[in-house]
């Protein structure tokens, strides 16, 4: 491998907190962060949507394409063997990164496809497509699928569709005024009819961290399976899926320094081996006749067709990069940025933060509403200052409806963001109400819209 050495990074074994000097050095690995936008230095606060990629990740993909590019899992030539080794090596590193075994990591296009894969496996099992061992994926009238009010659409609509296809009922755990799951309701809803519980680890809108262990215990006590949406946790905090005890988890490479087009379905080994496939075709079979086919065990059973080899290899380099920094240090750095964001926003008249206020544990992001100014206009004003944020419903319309709004503005930080960028953003938000000529009234802290 001729991948650039991440020499600017301290060893992940080091437990000292990440310092500003280290982050400044790290930023040299991300040349895009030096861009000028509308005459201002870019402040990229949209990593919740997609992260930037370091040179090490770009170099890994280029190095593979320059020296080893070939088809994996077939062909007897040297390049094919090297490509397969690199491809499977990346799987091993991603597995290690999230506390899983190699055979428990399935490559998908993205997290959305990973959730759909599980939903369609249930669907196919319900149609009688699957080994006898797949009976625990069979759904019908009387069975219940449980999700929450705080989900990304990707963790809601596949379950709506699965319920419609099978006759099962979809039930939803509500959230409270701070965006936290109502656990009393969760205890009432998760019961003997529950077959699968799907929820997000960290909300992409409120930054709330859900109590995974408690929810897993509730689900497993009634024999239900658990699917965790780890899209906003795997990039930002140490994650041990085996220790958490979830049955399935999904996450996406492009939110964690990796490329687009590659996501992960994690599934406990025995479950994946019992599940009927979703996409079928080449590369996932043992014996094929004109009438029927037999399938490989997981993960290949779920990897039909030509795989995204260079993207997988780049993803491997991305988790290497994160591991070298150390995920606990990443988490602590971002948690401080998250508190700075929410404290700053709450101090500005006319701003209401969706979700928990200052002092409550949250991810390094904050979504907010400016009284009298639509989110799209807020985002436009900030863009003029070179500040990149997300505006809209962030693929969570029911969550926004719960807060009585249709759209919000979200600033989301990553390991490469600095307190100075957060301050520039806050200064920008202070200018919004003046520019749009609205006279805000100060909300009492903690009040709701």
């Amino acid at each position: 491998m001729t991948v650039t050495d991440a020499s600017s990074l301290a060893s992940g074994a080091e437990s000292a907190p990440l310092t500003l000097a280290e982050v400044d050095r790290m930023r040299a690995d991300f040349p895009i962060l030096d861009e000028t936008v509308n005459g201002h230095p870019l402040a990229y606060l949209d990593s919740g949507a997609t992260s930037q990629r370091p040179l090490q990740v770009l170099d890994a993909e280029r190095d593979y394409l320059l020296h080893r590019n070939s088809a994996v899992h077939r062909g007897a030539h040297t390049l094919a063997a090297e490509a397969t080794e690199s491809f499977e090596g990346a799987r091993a590193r991603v597995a290690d990164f999230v506390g899983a075994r190699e055979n428990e990591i399935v490559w998908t296009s993205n997290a959305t496809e990973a959730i759909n894969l599980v939903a369609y496996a249930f669907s196919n099992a319900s149609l009688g497509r699957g080994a006898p061992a797949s009976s625990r994926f069979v759904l019908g009238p009387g069975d219940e699928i449980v999700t929450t009010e705080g989900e990304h659409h990707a963790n809601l609509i596949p379950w709506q569709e699965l319920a419609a296809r099978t006759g099962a009922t979809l039930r939803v755990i509500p959230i409270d005024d701070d965006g936290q799951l109502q656990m009393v309701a969760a205890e009432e809803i998760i019961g003997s009819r529950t077959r699968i519980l799907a929820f997000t680890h960290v909300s992409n809108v409120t930054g709330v961290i859900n109590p995974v262990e408690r929810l897993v215990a509730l689900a497993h006590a009634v024999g239900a399976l658990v699917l965790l949406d780890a899209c906003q946790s795997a990039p930002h905090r140490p994650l041990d899926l085996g220790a958490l005890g979830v049955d399935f988890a999904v996450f996406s490479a492009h939110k964690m320094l990796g490329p687009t087009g590659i996501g992960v379905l994690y599934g406990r080994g025995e479950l994946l081996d019992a599940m009927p496939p979703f996409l079928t075709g080449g590369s996932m079979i043992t014996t094929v006749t004109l009438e029927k086919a037999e399938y490989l065990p997981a993960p290949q059973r779920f990897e039909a067709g030509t795989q995204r080899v260079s993207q997988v290899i780049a993803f491997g380099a991305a988790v290497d990069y994160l591991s070298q920094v150390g995920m606990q240090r990443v988490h602590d750095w971002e948690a401080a940025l998250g508190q700075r964001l929410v404290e700053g926003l709450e101090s500005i008249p006319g701003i209401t933060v969706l979700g928990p206020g200052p002092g409550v544990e949250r991810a390094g992001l904050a979504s907010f509403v400016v009284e009298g100014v639509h989110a799209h206009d807020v985002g436009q004003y900030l863009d003029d200052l070179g500040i990149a944020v997300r505006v809209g419903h962030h693929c969570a319309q029911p969550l926004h409806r719960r807060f009585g709004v249709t759209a919000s503005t979200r600033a989301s930080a990553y390991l490469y963001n600095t307190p100075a960028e957060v301050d520039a953003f806050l200064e920008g938000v202070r200018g919004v109400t003046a520019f749009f000529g609205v006279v805000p009234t100060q909300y009492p802290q903690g009040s709701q819209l």
Partner: protein
Amino acid sequence: MSSSLESLYQEVIMDHSRTPHNHGLREGGSAESHQLNPTCGDEVTLRIHSQGDTITSLSWEGHGCAISQASASLLSDVIVDLDRAAVQERIDAFRELMRSKGTLEGDEELLGDAVVLGGVSRYIARVKCAMLAWVALEDALAKSPAA
């Protein structure tokens, strides 16, 4: 603040977004259209009021960003006592302006004060916001029976 941002949010646009004209759906009307921009949740419901072959006025309601709401308000000032062909001519002129990426001034004879929205055409992500009410009008026109 950059001059391009100030040209995007001109005073006329801000005034229309704060105190929109013809806001609130009036009784009657020959056709109606509801349009939604799913990326940001902007919504406009627009109603055509006509007499014979003449579109006498529009009424509308909605919510969303300053551009989408001001555009609906400005549109409602443009469409007063016009026949169908004249209405379509104005929709076409506005669409051409929005697709111009800042290269056109806009025909004030046809579009009146709505030419101030020309600055939006430089912001590709915002063209949909400005077009929302005009697309609603075009849709309502298609549904409206010709006299």
